[in-house]
């Protein structure tokens, strides 16, 4: 068993969706569709492409997430670096065909909490980011 403090934090969210992977892939990779469910963006499905995800600026956050495309395997895997307020994470979407549609999995791997250099910028900044995000989400309801 690892020391909790030495683990890399990650978030996994999964869904079974009754659609073919091709359709979900379009929603994950076409900018006007990404904007509808995630954020405004200048995404291109090209490895190495730098792009931004943008929300409206918040009191302690400019609303910008800097991203870089890492993996593009059409209809299977999409991965990009996701950096904001000094914290770098990697977001990976994986699509797997099922009998009734597609299993959609999102994993966001975070920083290692035992890295002291993450303290000042990342931890504090990240929390500000979430505080802003929560406000946004609260207003969306």
């Amino acid at each position, binding site marked *: 068993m690892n020391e909790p403090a030495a683990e890399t934090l990650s*978030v996994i969210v999964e869904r079974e969706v009754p659609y073919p992977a091709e359709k979900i892939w379009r929603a994950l990779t076409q900018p006007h569709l990404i904007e509808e469910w*995630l954020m405004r963006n200048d995404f291109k499905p090209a490895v190495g492409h730098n792009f931004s995800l943008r929300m409206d600026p918040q009191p302690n956050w400019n609303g910008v997430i800097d991203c870089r495309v890492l993996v593009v395997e059409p209809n299977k895997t999409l991965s990009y670096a996701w950096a904001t307020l000094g914290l770098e994470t990697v977001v990976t979407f994986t699509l797997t065909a099922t009998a009734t549609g597609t299993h959609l999995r999102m994993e966001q791997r975070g920083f290692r*909490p035992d890295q002291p250099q993450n303290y000042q910028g990342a*931890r*504090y900044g990240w929390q500000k980011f979430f505080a802003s995000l929560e406000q946004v*989400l609260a207003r969306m309801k």
Partner: protein
Amino acid sequence: MPSIHDVLFRTLGDPTRRAIFERLCREGEQTVGALTARAGVSQPAVSKHLGVLKHAGLVRDRHEGRETHYSAQPGALAPLIDWTKQMAGFWRNRFDKLEDLLRRMDQ
């Protein structure tokens, strides 16, 4: 009764105080004198900031002779880094929107 989040935010919201805490995280245990030498404020002011940090659980003090040594207690930041839970909530919300979108999209 302010929540632990409020206390941590208020404590770290002051730039001088945050700088002191960051230095202790970065450089390890230090005396008030050493911290004052580079803090740009008086020793009583540094001591006051350290008192607030200590109250929030962010630093610990250790007395040795006439000197008091302070060290960072990064574990006290734990409530602020419970980001996995919040991020999961963010993505679930976004996946709801994605499913709405998929319903509206033609094949």
